[in-house]
């Protein structure tokens, strides 16, 4: 397993030894299932190699892949890796986003990736026509790939060369590509496989999109390079039919599944008793909660709801991961149960200390461990000046590993800001206790909705531009909602417009935010001028106004 330091060589090796071995079973709501063998994968991906060659893609150039079909996304990605190009998967437009906004983001992405090569499908091609200048994009249609015959992989490669780009979320104005080398990716897969005690009897079930690190690394490259079978479905099919995941686990006897926190609540609430009757989940080793703040309540809810189907507490695992480290930094729950601590909430807030407390005598908060650092990964907690803090002191989480990003693609300024002396500063807050990492929140005011990062400044800028709103007098923040297991988006904006027009303005805000950020605002409050408060630095305070909203507007 994972003999070579080059990603694609591991895949080629499996294909040459066991051409008929199953790489993935793709499940579709409308088309049934498709099995892809390693031999079939290399053949189909080889057609993309030939298409890339014909279009004049040069090795080490970025190929952006935007597709509504997972099967073609996989072939295009593997083909790019075989060719020595740098694949980068980007979300395809959903019904939510306006075509104009999508085109703008895509054009920006191509420009930060310094490429014009785009793999897409006919419908997107028609949509883009005329929107993006013809000379800035060379569009390759997956419909045309069948006309090509398969070409073999080009000889590669240097383990230090970039193998793929992951698009770490950034504010809209600042998309950045996380560039990962072959050795970073392979190191991550080796480190993580050993932590998971991955073996040939494992089978991974996933509904995660491939444009997200958890979907791309844990639920695509890990099985691809190790030969462990994958059962994959589209997130859109899963959302419409959540039972699809459990039916897949039952039928294919899957053992591993990664999901963001909201999915635990979503499944517990949305799956009906009748559908569950004959479903057996006892084959599972681990449901791994990752990609947004983890709630112990969500785990309990999930466990109690599906106990009758074989879900046990010890299956519920946790993970702390980020695209900048390829994926996982810590993992909990594989060998020992995940630790849960009850802390004195006052000490957390006032002294930045994580002191275990008794709920009968103090105001408490419950936190769940994200586990221990995986091999060749180090975690430190640092203060504002970058000095290391002792155990149980709360500060910024910094990491160092052998699977870190090479660079933010073509952004040396951001690279040197993010990594200091080999340590990457995550922007997340947490503490260490006896080797376990507990993640408490974020330093920056990032909002995470169902695993998707949303930057409040993006919302604020959009809302500021809406007629009737005081420009610059807008604050957006997230509030964790325990019933849905993820954050709600709240927007506060000042206006002097008469009350009769408020609804109209709120609807204009909701529409603009949805179309430009693919995000739904759960609450929008229009306020009189000077309601919003500023921090000591003179800027509108997100945490301050969040507190004011909770005490004055939400409480009533």
């Amino acid at each position, binding site marked *: 397993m994972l003999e070579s330091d080059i990603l694609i060589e591991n895949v080629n090796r499996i294909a040459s030894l066991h051409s008929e071995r199953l790489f993935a079973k793709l499940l579709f*709501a409308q088309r049934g299932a498709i099995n892809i063998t390693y031999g079939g994968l290399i053949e189909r991906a080889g057609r993309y190699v030939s298409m890339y060659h014909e279009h004049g893609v040069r090795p080490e150039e970025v190929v952006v892949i935007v597709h509504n079909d997972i099967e073609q996304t996989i072939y295009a990605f593997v083909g790019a890796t075989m060719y020595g190009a740098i694949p980068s998967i980007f979300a395809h437009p959903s019904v939510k986003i306006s075509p104009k906004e999508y085109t703008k983001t895509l054009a920006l992405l191509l420009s930060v990736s310094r490429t014009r090569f785009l793999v897409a499908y006919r419908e997107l091609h028609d949509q883009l026509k005329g929107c993006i200048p013809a000379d800035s994009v060379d569009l390759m249609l997956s419909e045309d790939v069948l006309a090509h015959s398969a070409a073999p992989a080009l000889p590669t490669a240097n383990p230090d060369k970039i193998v793929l780009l992951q698009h770490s979320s950034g504010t809209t104005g600042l998309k950045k590509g996380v560039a990962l080398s072959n050795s970073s990716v392979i190191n991550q897969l080796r480190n993580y496989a050993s932590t998971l005690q991955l073996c040939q009897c494992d089978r991974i079930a996933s509904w995660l999109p491939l444009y997200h690190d958890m979907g791309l690394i844990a639920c695509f490259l890990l099985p691809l390079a190790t030969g462990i079978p994958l059962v994959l479905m589209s997130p859109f099919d899963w*959302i*419409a*039919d959540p*039972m699809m995941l459990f039916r897949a686990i039952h039928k294919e006897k899957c053992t591993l599944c990664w999901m963001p926190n909201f999915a635990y609540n979503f499944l517990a609430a*949305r799956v009906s008793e009748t559908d569950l009757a004959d479903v057996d989940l006892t084959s599972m080793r681990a449901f791994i909660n990752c990609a947004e703040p983890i709630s112990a309540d969500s785990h309990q809810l999930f466990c109690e709801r599906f106990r009758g189907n074989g879900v046990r507490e010890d299956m519920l695992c946790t993970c702390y991961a980020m695209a900048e480290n390829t994926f996982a930094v810590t993992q909990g729950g594989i060998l020992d149960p995940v630790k849960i601590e009850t802390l004195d909430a006052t000490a957390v807030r006032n002294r930045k200390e994580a002191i275990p407390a008794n709920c009968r005598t103090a105001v408490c908060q419950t936190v769940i461990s994200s586990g221990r650092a995986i091999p060749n990964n180090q975690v430190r907690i640092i203060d504002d000046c970058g000095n290391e803090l002792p155990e149980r002191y709360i500060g910024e989480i910094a990491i160092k590993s052998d699977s870190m990003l090479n660079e933010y693609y073509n952004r040396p300024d951001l690279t040197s800001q993010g990594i200091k002396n080999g340590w990457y500063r995550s922007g997340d807050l947490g503490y260490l206790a006896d080797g376990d990492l507990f993640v408490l929140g974020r330093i920056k005011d990032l909002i995470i909705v169902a695993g998707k990062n949303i930057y409040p400044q993006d919302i604020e800028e959009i809302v500021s531009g809406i007629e009737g709103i005081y420009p610059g007098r807008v604050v957006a923040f997230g509030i964790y909602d325990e019933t849905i297991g993820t954050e709600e988006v709240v927007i506060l904006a000042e206006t002097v417009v008469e009350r009769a027009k408020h609804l109209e303005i709120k609807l204009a805000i909701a529409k603009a935010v949805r179309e430009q950020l693919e995000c*739904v*605002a759960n609450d929008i*409050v229009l306020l009189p001028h000077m309601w919003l408060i500023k921090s000591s630095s003179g800027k509108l305070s997100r945490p301050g106004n969040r507190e004011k909203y909770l005490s004055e507007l939400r409480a009533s």
Partner: protein
Amino acid sequence: MRAWFRKSDPITKNINGPVDYEAAAQKLRSFVAAKSKFIEASEIANETKLFSSGLLDSLAFIELVLYVEKEFHLKLADFTEVNLNSLDSIEQILDPIFKRSRNISPAS
């Protein structure tokens, strides 16, 4: 279209459906108002866009479908396409149901 939004078996199909259009619309208004914190039931018109407007997200869509099916004892897929575009307002949800119910009811 999707397994989950399957049509009902012919035998269990409820042909009566909801009786009073305005009462049904009122129920949906209350449902939508409970999902979004910034709009009142009285502010939602039958033609107000629910999803393309940014009022509700795709998770609320699933809940809305479940709610309609449970409340009115029917399968939406028997009446219309079940997706964000085809069920984007109260009238888009109710019109096909009432049109069909009217057609069926007198004969049965």
